[in-house]
Structures are given as C-alpha cells and as structure tokens.
C-alpha cells in the first residue's frame, strides 16, 4: 500500500510541476508554430537561435502574421532529441534543428514537416546522404531538410596562418575527437598547409580532462597552433590560453568565441548571422511557399566573415594587429 | 578395529594475521589434526583460541601460510573455497549466511544438490528432484515440504539453520563443518536443530566437525573432543574417556591451561 501511495505521490508531483509550467506557456493562436530544438546551451548555438528568431519574427511582422516559437533544449542529451523531435513532428509548421544530433533526430522523425538545420557543418555526413556535395553551393538534400552550414572558410583561415606567421615551420592542430566536425576541419586545413609546404601535426584530445596535457605538448612542439570550430575547445579556451600564452605560442582560432578566450586572431563566421540566414529561409518556406527540398543548403562566404583579433593576447605576445582586423568586442 | 581412512588432515598448518604489524596475531601454529572417517569431532576453546581460523582454513576462506590440508585424501591446500565445496557441507553461525533469501526453498536445495558439479544450461531444478526434496524436507518436521516455493528469506532463523543443514548433507559431503550453528538460536530451537544434526550425521555416517561454545553439547555430541587455545590443541579426548567427561572437568582444563599460560607469561 505504501508503495502505491509513493507512486501516486511522485506522479502527482510530476503532474503538478508540469501543470504549473503549462500555466506559464500561454495558449496561442498564432498563424505559425515553429519548434526549435537546440542541442545544448552554448554561446554559438544560442546566437544562431537568436538570429533565427529575430529574422523570422521581422519577416512575420512585415507580412502581418504571427508566429509562436516552441524552444526546447536537449541539455546535451542526444537521447532527449528524439523525444523532442517526436513532439515537433506532429502539428508544427516548421522545425529549426540547431546542431548535428538535433538535425539527425528531427530528420528521422518526420518526412513532412519542413526542417531547417543550423550550426551543422556537413549535411552529407549528418544525414547520411551519399550524393550530397557539401562544397556545391546549389546542392539540395532532396528531402524535407535544408538549412545553413557553419563550415568556416577553412582555406582562408589556413592562409591567414601563413600571412600572419610567414616564418612558422610547424603548425599544431589542436582539437577534440569527440566533436562531430573538428576532424574534417583539421583535415582540410592540414591539406591546405601541405600544399603550401608547411608542416602540421594533429594534437587531439578526447574530452576536457585531457586538454591540458595535449595542449602542453602542442605548445612545446609547434610554432603556431590552429584550433577549429570545436565546442570542447571553446568551453575550455581559458585553460588553453593558460598554457599557450606563457609558452609564447600564438593560437589562430576557427571562430570568435575561441579567439576571445585563447586566440590571437580569427576569420570568424557569425552564428547570429547564420541564424538570421536560416530565419530568412524559414520565412521563405512559411510565407512564400517555397519547398524545403528544393532549397540549397547555404553557407557563409568569406565576405560575410570578419577578421578579428584579440587585443590583450596580441599585446602580451608582442604581435602587432594586422591591417584590416577588428579587435574583438569593439 | 577396521581400517579407517582419514577424511580431514591438517599437517603443520600455520596462519598469522597482520604479519609484521603491531596487530600481529598467530591464529594457528604448527597445527596437526587428523579426523577419521565417520568421526564426530567437537571443538571448543575460548575466544581467540583459533577455532574460527581452523574452520576458515579448512573451507578455504583464508589461505594458509604453511602446512598442508587434505580432504578425503585430496590435497586441497591451494584450492579456492568454491572448489573445496565439493568435499564440504557447511552450516554457519549466522542463519542469514547459509541460504539465498530471495530464492525459493526448493531452489536453495537444488543449488546444494549440484554442489561440486559443473553448472550447465540444464534446468536448475527438475520435477523428479522436487519429490526428493519434499521427502527430505518432511524429515525436518517443520512443515516446509508444503512451502517449497516460499522464499528462504521469509523463514525464521531456526528454520533456516535446519534448511542449511539439509542443504549441507543433501549430497553426502566428505566432511560436515558446523560453525557454532546453534549459537544464534533460542535454547529450544537450538536443541531441536542439534538433535536433527546428530540424527542426520549418524544416519549417513558423516564425518563431522562441530565448533561450539556450549561445553555440555560438546561433551554430549560426537565421539571425540578437542580443546583449542592459542592456535594449538591443548586437549584431545575420545571414546570412553570422553563419555565420562563433565563440564567441570573441561572448566578445570581451561583454568589449568590458562594458569600455565599466565605463569609462562610472568616467567618470560
């Protein structure tokens, strides 16, 4: 009997909590309902979501329509993505899937609701599409998925290393193997460097506990370190800075967040702008009736990126910020 | 007298705990003992006399430091506990220890019935066995034969000790080891369990070693008695001489050896 009571108690607690929460999310009669599934709270992903909302809201306002956003965060539990996607797959007008596992879960939950991905690097591998060419700007998935890719202009970033440090003989590539897309970025940069006759070596760690040991070795063996767009590196940029700066080894980062933590300079895409771009696509689908399967996956071009430098680290290392670079935060 | 073979032999067994530390304790010292087939040996001794260590080295709970142990003629000195189980039936002091509480009475018996055999993917309990278990349980006179699918954890301490005793002897062991198996029971229950012990040992002519705190029991049961102190045997009596023993005699022995001990301690 006690057990029944306890179960009932626990169930009541859950329902009570749920009902009090539902009270806060007011019932809506919006023209469109958009589900946003974000993998984890993270400055880059947050910026993309924000850009998406702002852009879509603006287009909706202009068209005199209303939109309701249902934002769900999977707390980095990939298993939670499926449950959230299961909700969005029914009765929603559009889904924004922010980060690779979020997109995968959504794409595996519905073949009818249009899905837009963002903060996804390679759509071919994320969706298992063998015929999709990530480097073709006009490539469409052919299924109910499109979106934007956060693939950085890697060749330009690699060239940046050569421009800023012409006498560098060896570039250390520091990244996390447990990140979806770091391996690809590092391979591309290494290839570019090799073409230009500069040696590079990979220094990979598997989680945040290994970072300091790996970073120390990278710092002692390299003239310059390159870090791609890598979430684990981003979360631990202060740790990396604490190793590389005293060693006097400059870091070129794949994006602004890492650069502000431990980098000297970056050619960074803006996740907010990436979100804005995705929001525009969403408006095209909802308001203009465009078909998601026929919309090419969009990328950020070099022109949309900004050359940035970290003033504090540059000064410490005695590096003069190059022409045309903006200090981060200005 | 006909030739009897030794079922348990300990030759020069030594066991010291915490060797080399301030807590060093010599539990068994150059310990020799031979128990013949069919003998019922009772073991008494004060706390720290080495009774438990003696039992545990026979079972294989502790490895010995030196010496050899033979069970039914096999050298088991290096065998792990579970492999010696083939030769041993054991009943523990703690009624909780001898049975598997979440398993049915008949499942416990079936486990015991397979002691010393390789456990295969054949059914854990067979229909024919159930009948056999039922008749065996009926001998306990506790009505357990009607409750064969009840979990052993629901039995009382006395019931569990009786069940454990049955489990220990279901397959005739070379040696039955009883480690103060009635100490945790109330006197009436203890007497019952002890009576059943004697009955089952006599019936199957089991070679038995029973450690006990109760001197009257030690005198009354069995045909040989040893008294232990300081990891050695200080008194070994059997046959007619044992039958005529009284508790007073044993207490006298205790005092004498204790006195001898303290004399020695003073002299050294």
């Amino acid at each position, binding site marked *: 009997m*006690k*057990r*029944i009571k*306890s*179960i009932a108690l626990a169930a009541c607690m859950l329902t009570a909590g*749920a009902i009090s*929460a*539902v009270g806060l999310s007011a019932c809506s009669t919006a023209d469109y309902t958009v589900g946003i599934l974000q993998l984890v709270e993270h400055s880059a992903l947050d910026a993309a979501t924000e850009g998406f909302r702002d852009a879509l809201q603006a287009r909706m306002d202009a068209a005199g329509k209303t939109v309701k956003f*249902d934002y769900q*965060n*999977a707390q980095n*539990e*990939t*298993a*939670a*993505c*499926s*449950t959230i996607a*299961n*909700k969005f797959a*029914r009765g929603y007008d559009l889904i924004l899937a922010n980060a*690779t*596992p979020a997109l*995968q*879960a959504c*794409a*595996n*939950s519905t073949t009818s609701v249009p899905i837009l991905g963002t903060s996804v690097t390679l759509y071919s591998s994320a*969706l*298992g599409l*063998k015929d999709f060419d990530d480097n073709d700007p006009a490539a469409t998935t052919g299924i109910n998925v499109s979106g934007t890719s956060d693939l950085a202009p890697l060749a330009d970033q690699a060239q940046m290393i050569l421009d800023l440090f012409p006498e560098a003989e060896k570039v250390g590539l520091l990244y996390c193997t*447990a990140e*979806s897309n770091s391996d690809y970025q590092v391979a591309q940069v290494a290839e570019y460097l090799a073409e230009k006759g500069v040696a590079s070596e990979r220094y990979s760690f*598997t989680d945040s506990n290994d970072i300091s040991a790996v970073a120390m070795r990278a710092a002692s063996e390299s003239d310059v370190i390159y870090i791609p767009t890598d979430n684990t590196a981003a979360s631990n940029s202060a740790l990396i800075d604490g190793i590389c700066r005293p060693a006097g080894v400059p870091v070129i980062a794949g994006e602004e967040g890492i650069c502000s933590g431990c980098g000297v300079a970056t050619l960074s895409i803006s996740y907010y702008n990436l979100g804005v771009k995705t929001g525009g696509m969403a408006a095209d689908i909802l308001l203009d009736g465009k078909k998601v399967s026929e919309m090419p996956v969009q990328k950020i071009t070099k022109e949309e990126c900004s050359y940035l430098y970290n003033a504090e680290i540059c000064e410490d290392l005695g590096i003069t910020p190059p022409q045309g670079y903006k200090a981060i935060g200005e | 007298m006909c030739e009897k073979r030794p079922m348990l032999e300990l030759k020069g067994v030594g066991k010291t705990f915490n060797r080399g530390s301030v807590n060093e304790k010599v539990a068994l010292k150059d310990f020799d003992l031979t128990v013949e087939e069919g003998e019922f040996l009772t073991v008494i001794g004060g706390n720290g006399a080495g009774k438990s260590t003696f039992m545990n080295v026979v079972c294989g709970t502790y490895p010995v430091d030196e010496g050899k142990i033979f069970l039914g003629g096999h050298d088991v000195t290096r065998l792990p*506990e*579970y492999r010696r189980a*083939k030769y*041993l039936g054991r009943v523990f002091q703690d009624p*909780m220890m001898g*049975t*598997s*509480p*979440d*398993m049915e009475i008949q499942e416990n018996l079936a486990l*015991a019935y*397979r002691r010393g*055999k390789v*456990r295969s*993917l054949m059914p*854990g*309990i067979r229909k024919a066995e159930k009948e056999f278990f039922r008749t065996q349980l009926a001998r306990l006179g506790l009505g357990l034969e009607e409750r064969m699918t009840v979990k052993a*954890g629901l039995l*009382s*301490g*006395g019931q*569990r000790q009786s069940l454990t005793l049955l*489990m220990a002897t279901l397959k005739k062991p070379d040696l039955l080891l009883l480690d103060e198996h009635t100490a945790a029971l*109330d006197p*009436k*229950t203890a007497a019952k369990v002890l009576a059943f012990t004697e009955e089952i040992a006599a019936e199957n002519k089991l070679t038995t070693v029973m450690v006990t705190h109760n001197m009257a029991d030690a005198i009354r049961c069995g045909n040989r008695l040893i008294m232990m102190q300081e990891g050695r045997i200080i008194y070994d009596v059997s046959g007619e001489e044992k039958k005529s023993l009284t508790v007073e005699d044993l207490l006298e022995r205790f005092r004498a050896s204790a006195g001898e001990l303290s004399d020695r301690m003073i002299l050294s």
Partner: protein
Amino acid sequence: MGFLSALPGAIALGLIWGLMAIGVYITYKVLDFADLTVDGSICTGGAVCAVLVTAGVNVWVAMLAALLAGAAAGLLTGVFHTLMGIPAILSGILTQLILWSVNLKIMGQANLSVSARTYGVVISQLEAGWAILILFGFVSVIIGLLYWFFGTELGCGIRATGNNPNMSRAQGINVGLNKIIGLMISNALVALAGALLVQYQGFADINMGRGAIVIGLAAVIIGEALVNLICRNFAVRLAGVALGGIIYYIVYQLVIELGMDTDLLKMLSALVVAIFLAIPYWKKRYFSGFHRKKAAKEPPAPPPEGGETAAQEPPAAAPLQGGQSDV
C-alpha cells in the same frame, strides 16, 4: 491531442530503454552490482551497429556484433572487479572511460548518421507504430530467454551469487565467474538497446550514453514498484522493468508536450529515482520501528509455540525484496 499522437514515439523509445533497463536489472537487482559500465556500453553497441550498417553490413549481423561488443565490455568490468580486486563502482567507471576512447575509435568520428532514409534499418522514429511492434517482439523474446536462462543450473548459480555470495561459495559456485557472466549478459543487452536506439533516432553519437544509468535505474525502480504489488514471477518482473521504461518516456514526453522548462528535466528524473530508491529504506525504518514498539509493550514471553516460528524473524528479510540502498 498532440500528446496522444506523440504516444507511439514515446512508447517505442520507452521499449528501447526498457530493454536497456532489463540489462541494468540483471546487474543491479540480480547480481547486486551497481554497474556504471552501461553509460559506455550503450554507446559501444550503437557505434558498432552504426559503423557496420553504414559499411553495408546486414543490419541483423550488425546488431549481433553490437551484442557481442557489449558482452566484451561487461567482461572487462568483470575482470577488473574479480581478477584485479577493484571495487564494483570503480570497475564500471574505469570501463566507461576506456569505452569513451574505444567508441571514438570504432566510429572514427564523434557522430555517425544511420538515417532510415539511406540505410536499411529495422526500426525508425519515422514509423513509430511499426517500431513498437518490432521492439515488443524483441523485448518479449529477450524476457523469454532470460526467464529460461535464470532457471537453469548456471542461471540459478548467478542469482545465488548476487543474493548470498557466502552461501554460493559454500555450495561450490564460482562467484567471480558468475559475476563476469552476469555482467556480460547485462552489457550485451544494453549494447543491443544502443544498437536499436541508433537505428530509431537515426544516428550514433559519442555522447549518447550520457545519463543512461539514471534512465535505466528509473525504469527498473518504477517497474519494480508497480509489478511487485501484483506478482513476483521473474518474467513478470522483467516485463515490469520494460513497462517502467515506457512509463518513464510517456511522462518525459508529457513534460515536454506541456512545455516545461527542459533545463529541469535531469533534476526531475534524478529526484524521481531518488524518491523511489528511498521507499524501501523508509519502509524498513517504519516497519522496524513498529516492531520495536510492539515488542516493548509485550512482556518478555517465552519462545512461542513451535519454537522456531516468529521468534527469530530476521530483521533483514523485508528490505531484501526492495533493493539495497547502498548505491
């Protein structure tokens, strides 16, 4: 209404995690071994299955391989514990760490797509109803196999090992070996659940095992609490565990449908687990207190009729049913 249409998806996911929870049940309840290997082995199963399926191997072969990989993970934990004398929880954590690296090496990357649109998988969230049927078949067959196995001589020995290792050794049971076998079976099932999960959600990810043990324990505990009232048959209890997984995911789906703050989800599930874990402990305290009071009121009577009935009722008999709270 939206919730009802989302039910099939929740039930399918619940069945997958229910299968995983059956694996947890074997270690946690049968073997009395708090095994944390599962956070790693679920991903190992998923990774092996994903790699083989994307390489064009038949999906059933891939699932079999995942099963074996999980068994190997269990073997490792078992060896750490029995041959190297490392405490149970630490053994599991060590294997979990090893598996993080192993899983990365298996996949060669952190994330691998096994989209149902490209590969011939058995189940997918795209067809949740169909998935439920297949998963129901899986769970039924596995419960049947486990019911048979734990009734064999070997299986009984494993149950005894978890229940009373002292008695088991005295009955000639190789406790260490049995623990290893139990861990292998458990992790094989967990890995199979991982292989099914990967197909269902359409991708394998290095992080997919995160928090798996909590979901598994939640399912075990909810299931035990429900089914113990009705029936104590082993197969029914296993079915109860699968049901626990389904209930967990229906509640989870409900929480998400209602738009509750997902930031709180982890805390909520952990709290629910904590409450259910506390029930046997509270029960024990309540009951033993009750007994003491009652005993104090009555005069110290001589042993009741029949000698060995109520007099020696061991105090630990009751909590053994409810699960040890030493985790």
